[in-house]
Structures are given as structure tokens and as C-alpha cells.
């Protein structure tokens, strides 16, 4: 993500020089400053606060207690408190640790594996997010807004699926081959908006949104074809991949029900690779140079068009890996139109929260994976879309740190606010 200084440092420095700085003072100063760490923390807090308000406003029972607020305010306040508390506890129990299960485990009635299930779900949902987050983040560095991770992921899913059931090979070759097929399919689809931008100047945001819609419809059609459709089931579901191409589970030693699989280490590997690519390779240097200033890069002899195309291809490949992880991870069950969820779109929020740094993306993917796991396990008591809502609010603040600064009256840090650089069409 190309960053830029938007505001000059504040001029209130002399006052600080007079007093001797001690740790607490420095710490307090740090807390009230709009630096990127504190903006992230405040964004999270504000998002959960706004989420709580929306929960209260939209709940019929709690709303009814507010009709007699001035007669008995404690009713409304306790009802609100319990609603918000229970909702967030439900999210926590679905994502991190189920407190009931902890009691049962302490009493000796549950396995250790059962205790890990919420965490395993969080990691399962975080895995595709790591890949799609990297796909969006990498393109960001080249000044491209890759909003098409969803479509690239869908093609990755199909690519891995076709190799997964189409070939009969020993597992040592079959699994890697299916993964690579997913990456290639995603890369091919991802290169299109890059190529269009390079050759015709079409903005990648519009073209990749259209490609997302096309991919989603293509998936519906493809699942229905005789080639892909399950031979045993009548609903819209594909053939399963062969046993030799199934992504093995990571913790099957503890409990078979823990879904987290080897795609997670693969995702972390992909993050390390992306870090290496961006900060240690010539290609990465070109990406960052073009993202920072395309005109200067062109003057320096870099080919802008081909950088756009190759960057989008690599990004598409990363999103394709997310698709492969999903295809090969569902095991004996086939793919449905629902398997892809919104991992591709969530990748955008992951990349923004992670500020397009591979390490930050992994952390953001874990957080949003936890939100997703929590929301899916807490529904229908808590609306499942609370995860989308919270994600959107968090990244809105991340993208507009000046808003956080204004709401909380924070001070401008030395060096100014870190914001995304604004570009036209």
C-alpha cells in the first residue's frame, strides 16, 4: 500500500522538551496519538462499539424497553447490557473458546480436541483469507486495487477440482499438482484485468468486478454440467476430489472433527514468499516502484504494462490457491455454489487492515477468520452478517485515520498520518 504524509507534524513540540520524559508519560503520549498501532486498536474498539449500538437499536425486545426509558431506565440499560454481552460472548465462544466446553473438560466429560474446535474453525476460515488478503495486498503495492480475488478464487477452485478428480496419481504428486492447477487457473483469470489495464487503460476495479460476476455465474453453470456434477447426488454439487488429492487435516491426531488442514501452513508459507518477493526480489522492487510512482518508473525504463499484468497474475495465483485450499479441503464432500462464501471480498478488508504487509495480512486474516467463525456459530441469535458489518467498519476507520483522529481528538504523530494515496481513474 503506497503511503503518504497528508498532514504536517503538529507544532506543539516545545512543551514536551521542558519536562523530563518518563515511561508513563511517553506511554500516555503514545496512547493519545494517531499512530498506526493506536489507529488500528481504536478502529477495532470503535467498530465493536458501533456494532453494540446497532445490536441494541435493531433488537425488538430491547427497543420496547426504551419506550418507558424515563419511567424505569434500569430496564432498558440492563436489557441492552445483556444483549450486547451475550452477543459478543457468543462470538467469542464460537471463535476462541467455548466456556461450557471448558467446564465439561474440567469435569472430565470432554476431550481436549473438543476444546480446540472453535480455534480450529477460526483457523479454517482464516486460511483462505490469508491467500485472498495476500492477493489484494500484493496488487496494492503495485498501485492496483485487485477487487477480483473472488473470481480468481472461483477459477482456482475449479482448476484444483478438475485435476483433483480427473487424474489418478499417487498422493505425493496428485496433491501438489492439484494445488498448482488452482494457482494457474487463478493466475490466468487474474491476469485479465492487468492485461486490460496495460493495453486499453480500463480501470482494474470495474473490469474485475465484472469478472467476479461472470465467474460466479460461470460456477453455477459449471457445477450443473455433466462433467463436474456429482453422479450420486441430485442437488447442485460437484464430484468429490480423489482421496489422493484431499488436503490432509492438521490435527487429525487429536480429533477427527478438527477441520483445520495443511492449507494453513501453506498460507503462512505463501505469506513468507510474498514478503520475500516484495522486499528481496527484483520483481518486487519493480512492483513497489510502479506503485510508488509509475511515471518515474517508466522514465527509469521499467515496463509499466507488463508489471501490471504480471502482478495481477501473481495476485490471481495467490487467490487461486485459496480456491485450491477450499476445493481440496472439503474432502469427500463436493463443491457447491456456497463453498466460496465471500472469501475474495473479505480479502480486501484483510489486506486493508493488514496494511498490505504479509505479516499484517496473516494477523488480519486470523482476526476476521475469528469473526466469521464466531458469527457462523452464533447465528441465528446474532445476525450472521455482523461479521461483514464489523469488518467494514474496522477498515473504514483504517482507511480514514483522520476520522478516528477527529472522533477521539487524538494528536497527529510525528511524520503525519499514514493514509492511502488517492488516485483517479
Amino acid at each position: 500500500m503506497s503511503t503518504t504524509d497528508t498532514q504536517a507534524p503538529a507544532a506543539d513540540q516545545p512543551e514536551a522538551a521542558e519536562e523530563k520524559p518518563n515511561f508513563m508519560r511517553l506511554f500516555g503520549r503514545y496512547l493519545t496519538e494517531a499512530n498506526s498501532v493506536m489507529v488500528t486498536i481504536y478502529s477495532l474498539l470503535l467498530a465493536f462499539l458501533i456494532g453494540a449500538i446497532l445490536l441494541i437499536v435493531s433488537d425488538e425486545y430491547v427497543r420496547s424497553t426504551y419506550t418507558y426509558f424515563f419511567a424505569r431506565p434500569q430496564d432498558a440499560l440492563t436489557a441492552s447490557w445483556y444483549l450486547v454481552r451475550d452477543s459478543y460472548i457468543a462470538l467469542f465462544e464460537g471463535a476462541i473458546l467455548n466456556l461450557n466446553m471448558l467446564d465439561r473438560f474440567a469435569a472430565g466429560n470432554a476431550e481436549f480436541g473438543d476444546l480446540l474446535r472453535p480455534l480450529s474453525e477460526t483457523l479454517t476460515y482464516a486460511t483462505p483469507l490469508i491467500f485472498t488478503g495476500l492477493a489484494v495486498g500484493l496488487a496494492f503495492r503495485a498501485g492496483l486495487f485487485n477487487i477480483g480475488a473472488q473470481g480468481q478464487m472461483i477459477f482456482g477452485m475449479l482448476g484444483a477440482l478438475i485435476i483433483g478428480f480427473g487424474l489418478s496419481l499417487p498422493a505425493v504428486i496428485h496433491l501438489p499438482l492439484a494445488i498448482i492447477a488452482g494457482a494457474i487457473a487463478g493466475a490466468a483469470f487474474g491476469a485479465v484485468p492487468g492485461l486490460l489495464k496495460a493495453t486499453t487503460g480500463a480501470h482494474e476495479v470495474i473490469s474485475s468486478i465484472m469478472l467476479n460476476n461472470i465467474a460466479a455465474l460461470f460456477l453455477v453453470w459449471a457445477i450443473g454440467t455433466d462433467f463436474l456434477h456429482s453422479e450420486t447426488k441430485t442437488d447442485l454439487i460437484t464430484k468429490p476430489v480423489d482421496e489422493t488429492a484431499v488436503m490432509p487435516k492438521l490435527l487429525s491426531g487429536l480429533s477427527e472433527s478438527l477441520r483445520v488442514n495443511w492449507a494453513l501452513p501453506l498460507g503462512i508459507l505463501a505469506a513468507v514468499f510474498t514478503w520475500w518477493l516484495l522486499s528481496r526480489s527484483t520483481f518486487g522492487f519493480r512492483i513497489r516502484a510502479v506503485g510508488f510512482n509509475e511515471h518515474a518508473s517508466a522514465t527509469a525504463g521499467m515496463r509499466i504494462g507488463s508489471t501490471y499484468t504480471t502482478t495481477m497474475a501473481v495476485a490471481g495465483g495467490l487467490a487461486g490457491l485459496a480456491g485450491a485450499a477450499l476445493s481440496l479441503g472439503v474432502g469427500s464432500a463436493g463443491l457447491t455454489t456456497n463453498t466460496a462464501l465471500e472469501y475474495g471480498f473479505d480479502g480486501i478488508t484483510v489486506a486493508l487492515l493488514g496494511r498490505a504487509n504479509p505479516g499484517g495480512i496473516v494477523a488480519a486474516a486470523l482476526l476476521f477468520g475469528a469473526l466469521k467463525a464466531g458469527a457462523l456459530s452464533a447465528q441465528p441469535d446474532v445476525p450472521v452478517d455482523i461479521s461483514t458489518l464489523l469488518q467494514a467498519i474496522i477498515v473504514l476507520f483504517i482507511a480514514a485515520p483522520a476520522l478516528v483522529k477527529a472522533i477521539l481528538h487524538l494528536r497527529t504523530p510525528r511524520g503525519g498520518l499514514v493514509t492511502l494515496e488517492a488516485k483517479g481513474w
Partner: protein
Amino acid sequence: MAVDTMTASPAVVDESVPVKFAKPGGVLAALGLLLVAIAFAVVGGDDTTTIAFDRTLTDVEWALPTSITVALLGAVTAAGGAWMIIGLPKRRFKLVAGVAVTAFVLGLLFWAYSQPGTVFRAESILAGALFLSLPYLFGALSGVVCERSGVINIGIEGQFLMGAFTGVLVANITGNVYAGMVGAMAAGLLSTMLLALLATKYQVNQVVVGVILNLLALGFTSFMYDQLKKAEGLNSAFSIPAISWGPLADIPVLGPVLFNQKIFVYIGLVLVFVIWFLLYRTRWGLRTRAVGEHPAAADSMGVNVNRLRYWNVTLAGLIAGFGGAWFTIANSLAFSKNMTAGLGFVALAVMIVGRWNPLGVLAGALIFGFTTQVARDLDASGGSVVPGEFLQMLPYAVTLVVVAGLIGKAKAPAADGVPYNPGDK
């Protein structure tokens, strides 16, 4: 803008000299010949295409021999292409290109409706096309106002969702469908106000924030939908009647298309001319265009750039919000999650096709509406050779072709998407 200055310039002499348009001419000639080949090779000799006037003259049906008609239309297309290759007066280019493209599209239509059992119900299809062009029209008009002022509004999709949701909600609470429309407009206004604030005061990356605002709208409306579902009667469908203009409604073709439609159609059409007039014939319009093209110049002439941008973007939300009400109120539907299905983004493409001009936008919206209507009709009649999913892809595929600039280079307002900071210059 560029077109205006060209036609106004005194270089009339050059207009009558034949100019060769080899590239578009070659493409059209090839397409025309392809159509002729299809007419003789693919279409059966006895196939007929039936045109019916299903609303006014229910007993009239024209059955035309498909192969001869298609071949003739193909010949017209090819002739137009050939004329372009040989060279034609520049001022004739638009007319010839228009006739050739129309002939080609009609040829495809005749071929598509040649299957037994399919009837081209001219009046229903044309009336439906006008009705289906409305979301594109409202979205693109809102986009025109924003982008002419220099702010990229990629959040139209989100404003549609907010309008669609709020429209139904307010209509249910008040029991009045027109109050619902006003509510939808207010919701659109509030959501663009956030964009306006972030774009002008906090100078963020408008594309990124637009995408986040879409996600926020999706999360918010889906969350509220789930919450309000628990309460009775907050999301019931409301409908409005079509306005019949008495005897005018009985005129063949024109009657059903223009004189028997819902109020949304008339508001949309009036809005096109109102915005055109405001943009090109008033002081506000001149200032708006100046702020979008060269904000520094406008500033030096005493225009408050960021304040004008703020209010223009905010007011554009009224149009987008009203467009949102189309999805629910005009279609007599209750709200459902993500019901706008990416049409807000297609509206952006319509804006680009229309070259940021309200009249061009009307033409573009009609083309997209027609494509959508024909795809739906063919899909529903079941007589199509192409799978339904591919027909549904049509608007997206057309958008892709359009933004890739195959129809011509579109030029955005010069300062579109670039925040204006008066201190910088």
C-alpha cells in the same frame, strides 16, 4: 466536453472530406459477413421469426422468414463496414456506425427468436427494456453528478442497497409507498454524505473508501434484514400502479412503452434532461464542471472547491437512493440480502459509455436495459440455444467490452478522484 469544443470549432471544411475508418469498418464488415454465413449455414430454411404486438394489437403477428431477414441485416452491417473502409464523410460516421450496429443486433435477435415456441413480444420487451434500464440510469446519473465534480463514487451499489432497504422499511412503518420513496432518497443522501465527508474533508482514497462503503452497506442491510425479520410486517412488499395516459396508452408500440409505465420511468426521463440542463446551462453546472476539470482554476475564481464537491456528492445520493427504491418498490418486492446484484457497478460502466453526459447516459442505460430484458426473456422462454447463466452474464460482459475501450476512448473529468487541498498549490 471534448466533443462540444470540436463541433463548435470552425473546422467545418474537414467534415465533408472522406475519411477512412479501417479498424471499426473491418470489424463491422467481418461481423456482417459472419451474420450472412450464419443465415445460410446455421439457420434452417423454413425457420420463421414471429413478432407480436402483445399489448395493443393482440391478434396481429408477423412471421418473417429467418434466414432471408438475417442475411439482409448481415448485408446491411457488412455494407456499412465496407463504406467505412472505403472512406466516408466524417459527419456521417456516427449515423453509419449506428445503423450497422443496430442491423447486427437485430440480426442476432432474429436468429435468437427463430426457435419454435419463441415469440418476440415487441411491446412487452421494449416496455420492459425501458423499465430495466432505470437502475442503470439512476446510478449513472448519480455518478455523473459526483464525477463531474471530481469525486469518484464507486459506492453506488451500496447506496442502492441502502435505498432499497430503507424504502421498504419506511413504506411499512408509515403505510405509504411515497413516504418509502422519500425514505430511500434520505438513506441515499446519508450514505453519500459519508463519502462526501471522507473525500473532501479527510482526503482519502475515494476508490478504496467507495468499496468499503459498499461492504458497509451490504453488511448493514443484511444485518438489519435478519434482525427485522424477527418482527412482523417491517419488510412486506409494497407496489405502485402504472400510470395509464388514457387513449395514448393504446397506440401500438409507443403506448405500452411510454404511456403506461410506473412513475419511476417518468422521473428517470425527466431527471436526464434536468441534470443535462443544470450541468450545461446554469452557473452551478459551469462551476461543477470546472471543479471536476481544474479545481485550482475554479478556486482562483472564487469557487469553494471542497464545499461544492461536498454538496454535489451529497445531493447525488438522492438520485442513487431513489434508484435503490426501484429494486423494491418499483418491482413490488420485499428487500432481500444483496438484491442489487452488482448493478450499481454496471451503472458506473453506463456512466463511462455515456461519457459523463446525461444524454449519453440515457442512451447507454437503454442499451443495457434492452440487453438485460432480451436475456431474461430468452431465458424464461426456454427456447435459447445458450445456457441461461451465459445470458445473465451479458450485461457484465458488455460492460467489460465497454470499459476496455473497444467502443472508443472515454475521457474522465481531469481531476476525477483527486482530492483538492487548497494549501497544496
